């Protein structure tokens, strides 16, 4: 590898991965414990009384949602804490004074966050397989939807970190926006159980599409047409990616 931009990109990704692995008790263990509890309580204890949902067992039904929830939260949390931490510790200046173009900075941080999301997703999936068999009838859709979901929330976390001025600012969005959207995005239930107005409102929630695309890949069932979900996810990737590049170009939150 001799292209300077690829070397720079590899350096950012490597640094992010080293960081994720260095603080593994903060990055990898908590989602594993939380999701195990979800599977035990919601899938095992409550799920056994719920019976089937969309034609599959309740335990199997919540697997895609819980995996996607972990991927989304960890991708978002990784980039927002890492990039804001770099701003706070001023080592973002190492990147700003370097010759690397903005797309390399953005891609590097997003790749690091996506990798954490995938790593945590794989751990949660492994835990899920202890509770219920996973068939994965559409592997390409499964992988594509999880990649797109992780990318979207990595980009969203980046935008949050750019605007954040204090650590509180990177916890407000996950607490007050991300978590409610995730829980209301069909992780634990089929949208068909909701009244009509709530079904319509759920269709405005981007996480709903990601969870359903992923559920289609894993279980072959979905509340929305899968291609609609992919089209919407691509729009989010392009829109948030363009916003991230624009913020870096303008130096908002980084250059005075």
């Amino acid at each position, binding site marked *: *590898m*001799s*292209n*300077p*931009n690829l*070397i*720079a990109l*590899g*350096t*950012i990704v*490597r*640094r992010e991965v*080293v960081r994720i692995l*260095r603080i593994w008790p903060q990055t990898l263990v908590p989602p594993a414990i939380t999701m195990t509890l979800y599977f035990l309580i919601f899938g095992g204890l409550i799920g056994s009384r719920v019976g089937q949902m969309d034609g599959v067992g309740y335990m199997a039904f919540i697997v895609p949602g819980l995996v996607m929830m972990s991927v989304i939260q960890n991708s978002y949390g990784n980039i927002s804490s890492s990039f804001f931490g*770099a701003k706070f*510790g*001023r*080592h973002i*200046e*190492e*990147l*700003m*004074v*370097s*010759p*690397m*173009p903005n797309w390399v900075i953005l891609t590097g941080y997003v790749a690091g966050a996506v990798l954490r999301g995938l790593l945590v997703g794989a751990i949660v999936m492994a835990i899920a397989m202890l509770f219920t068999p996973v068939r994965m009838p559409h592997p390409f859709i499964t992988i594509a939807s999880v990649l797109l979901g992780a990318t979207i929330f990595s980009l969203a976390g980046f935008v949050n970190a750019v605007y954040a001025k204090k650590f509180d600012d990177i916890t407000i969005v996950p607490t007050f926006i991300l978590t409610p959207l995730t829980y209301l995005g069909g992780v634990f239930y089929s949208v068909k159980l909701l009244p009509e107005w709530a079904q319509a409102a759920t269709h405005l929630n981007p996480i709903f599409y990601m969870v359903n695309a992923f559920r289609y890949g894993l279980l072959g069932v979905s509340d929305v047409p899968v291609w609609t979900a992919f089209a919407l996810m691509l729009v989010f990737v392009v829109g948030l990616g363009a916003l991230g590049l624009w913020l870096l170009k303008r*130096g908002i939150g980084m*250059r*005075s």
Partner: protein
Amino acid sequence: MTAIDPGVPALCVQALKKTYDNGVEALKGVSLEVAPGDFYALLGPNGAGKSTLIGIVSSLVNKTSGTVKVCGIDIDADRSAAMRQLGLVPQEINFNMFEKPIDICVNYAGFYGIPREVALERAEKVLRDAQLWEKANVMSRTLSGGMKRRLMIARAMMTEPRLLILDEPTAGVDIEIRRGMWQTLKKINAAGTTIILTTHYLEEAEALCRHLAIIDHGRIVAEGSMKSMLARLDVEGFLFDVENELPLQLPEIEGATLIALDGHTLDLDMPRAMDLNRVFDAFDDAGIRVRSMRTKSNRLEELFVRMISAPQEAAEVEVRA
């Protein structure tokens, strides 16, 4: 890729202006040129605009107008090529405290597109030069203040920059470490790297630099070679410790200003050309017996104080050596 002519100035700044969002005009049309290989001091009081100027050159601050060329490369036309020529040692510690010095250096080189195997070799060299090799694998937050400063210089040297900018690199470090850093900077400069230094220690600028500019209120108020600038000082100042009680009426010495600081200390400003014996003759006549005397301040400090205390007059007599 922009081609670089080795004869072009290491830094050329033209009519550079910066107005912050809050309306503060930090730079009001600064122009300066730093020759390749020079050791250049940028002096000025707090808030004069030094860090803003450095921030714009190193692309940490957006300029309002003007042009900046690093080694002949316009930062607007080819920012990447311009930044490859530049190394920055900022005022505040700005590396990741949770990384090891070796990783900080190797990653920094990676951001510049330097392959990892090359970066590892260079990291050993720069850390040895900075006397930090033994600390290469400890957490950076455990380093002392002086070591952290040396690490920032080592990190900047990872990319072998043609222009190295140091923003108060020795602020807050003890005299022994400071002198050690002077030796390091002299070696870097002797190897061909152009250095621009801002400092509040004027003796540091006088000891290291060949050219200087004084910036105040966002304007260059004086610029030239160290030699020519110091030659502009036509007044010398002395302090006299007097053995006996000073008389109520101090002697009048034509062309000089004599003030009593306390009952036993006199402060004298006199033209350089004036014969010091005239002063002692006047003291003898007034019955003043001098026990000891010393120069009042270092020469550059005197020049600096005069320039920034009378910026308007200073601007009118701006010289270029």
